[in-house]
């Protein structure tokens, strides 16, 4: 009897995982993804997998997720890979890259083009597993107080634009500036800075930037920002195989759900912004500026590839995959939209 009862008991055992997210509590879209994931995992496992989520307001370490999951203070995290580039430079490539892939292309790279394997290679050294955690879709290039008509206009442009994209702009004479999130609105309104990038209509609306800046530039620097689920390797190993699979599926589904939700929220919010402020001017950078930014971007990537063999491997893998996928994008979605606008 005991021999029969034991496996049943083991199957009923409840596994509790603690997850920390970078976002504050009630943060729309970004914060919905981990909650959606946790709810699915619990349901699919019939209550055997329970995941609690602590937001930034509780752990106070939005950019400490990497360390806290690594050390096992939390079993899981929800964040974005490029936040860790100061700690582990090669984590930069698994969120989005300027002039890189669009979301469908990038998902293709992750799941079928070797992206997941490369990400594992980077993260496994730190006893971490990393999974795609939801995509924002194409991010807007940001809110500008002045028009950018030439390379000259980038000279001395004070812009809040963190990370790698900031490096690209800095190469062209712009001045990336750090401003705390709480002071951004005031800084842009009073022109302490000339421009800033946030996300896109999905999250820009609540910041109110559209009320104080006339130009909304289209994106170039974050064509497909993918968030990230981080899992501590030991916590993962402790899970039975079926729960590992449930967790994997829940994370993948939640990521996809967030992509859709972002798309929807951007459409809704953009409609609202345009209704309330019909004078917002949507602009794209002129060809001269785009090609200079592209050149700067390529040079920076070449530098990174020269410094580190794994970085070289990742960059080459991404470039090769994008070339292949882009040909298809061009004759499918792009051709379709072009044919419509040509009418």
């Amino acid at each position, binding site marked *: 009897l005991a021999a029969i009862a034991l496996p049943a008991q083991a199957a009923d055992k409840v596994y509790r995982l603690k997850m920390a997210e970078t976002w504050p509590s009630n943060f729309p879209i970004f914060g919905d993804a981990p909650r959606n994931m946790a709810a699915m995992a619990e349901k699919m496992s019939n209550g055997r997998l329970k995941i609690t989520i602590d937001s930034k307001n509780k752990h106070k370490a939005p950019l400490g997720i990497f360390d806290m999951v690594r050390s096992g203070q939390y079993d899981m995290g929800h964040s974005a890979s490029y936040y860790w580039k*100061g700690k582990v430079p090669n984590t930069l490539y698994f969120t989005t890259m300027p002039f890189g892939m669009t979301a469908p292309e990038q998902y293709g790279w992750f799941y079928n083009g070797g992206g997941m394997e490369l990400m594992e290679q980077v993260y496994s050294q730190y006893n971490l597993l990393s999974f795609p955690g939801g995509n924002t879709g194409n991010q807007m290039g940001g809110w500008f107080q002045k028009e950018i008509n030439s390379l000259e206009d980038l000279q001395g442009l*004070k812009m809040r634009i963190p*990370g790698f994209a*900031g490096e690209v702009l*800095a190469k062209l004479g712009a*001045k*990336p*500036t*750090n401003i705390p999130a709480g002071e951004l609105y005031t800084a842009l309104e009073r022109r*302490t800075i000339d421009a800033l990038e946030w996300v896109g209509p999905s999250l820009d609306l609540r910041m109110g930037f559209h009320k104080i800046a006339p130009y909304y530039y289209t994106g170039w620097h974050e064509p497909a920002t993918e968030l990230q689920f981080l899992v501590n390797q030991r916590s993962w190993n402790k899970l039975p195989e079926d729960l590992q699979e449930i967790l994997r599926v829940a994370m993948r589904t939640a990521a996809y759900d967030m992509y859709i939700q972002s798309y929807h929220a951007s459409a809704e919010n953009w409609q609202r912004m345009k209704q309330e402020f019909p004078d917002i001017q949507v602009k794209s950078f002129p060809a001269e500026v785009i090609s200079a930014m592209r050149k700067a971007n390529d040079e920076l990537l070449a530098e990174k590839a020269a410094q580190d063999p794994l970085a070289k491997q990742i960059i080459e893998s991404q470039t090769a995959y994008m070339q292949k996928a882009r040909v298809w994008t061009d004759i499918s979605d792009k051709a379709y939209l072009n044919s419509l606008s040509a009418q």
Partner: protein
Amino acid sequence: MFLLRLESVINRFSDLLGKVSAILFVLMLFNVFYDVIMRYLFNDVSIGMQELEWHLFAAMFMLGVPYTLKVGGHVRVDLIYERLSGNQKAWIDLAGTLGLLLPFCLLVGWYGVGFAREAFELGETSGDPGGLPYRWIIKAVIPFAFFSMAISGVGLLLRSINTLRGHHPVAHYQPPSH
């Protein structure tokens, strides 16, 4: 006599930290001022200089805490405390240091060591263009400051012991906060 001498050695250490903090503050003031002037008059921004602002700021207040403990600048709720005799005050400080201050500072300091070591081993740098390298230095300020608080706490402990043993005049046991 040994305890008295130890107390004065610790006091000198705390005073030194106070001097360092004061200098860090002046540097920070000039740093922020310089950044504003450069941006407004010369349209020039440096992320490295911007980051240096909070590095100086953080080191300044963290190292200032042990110094402030030594000079009696930390605020107390003195509804009752102010009516006590010097000896009674000394007992409260003795118990508070042993039961509250030392365990707190030593534990946080201990976890701070691992925190700083992690940054050192990863070779952590700023994630922003032109940011500062060697993040472990500012992170190491946390354990250093908390261990210094513990040392200053030992100074307070010795002060209360030496007072109870009659080596300090009881009448003005606690230095005025200002």
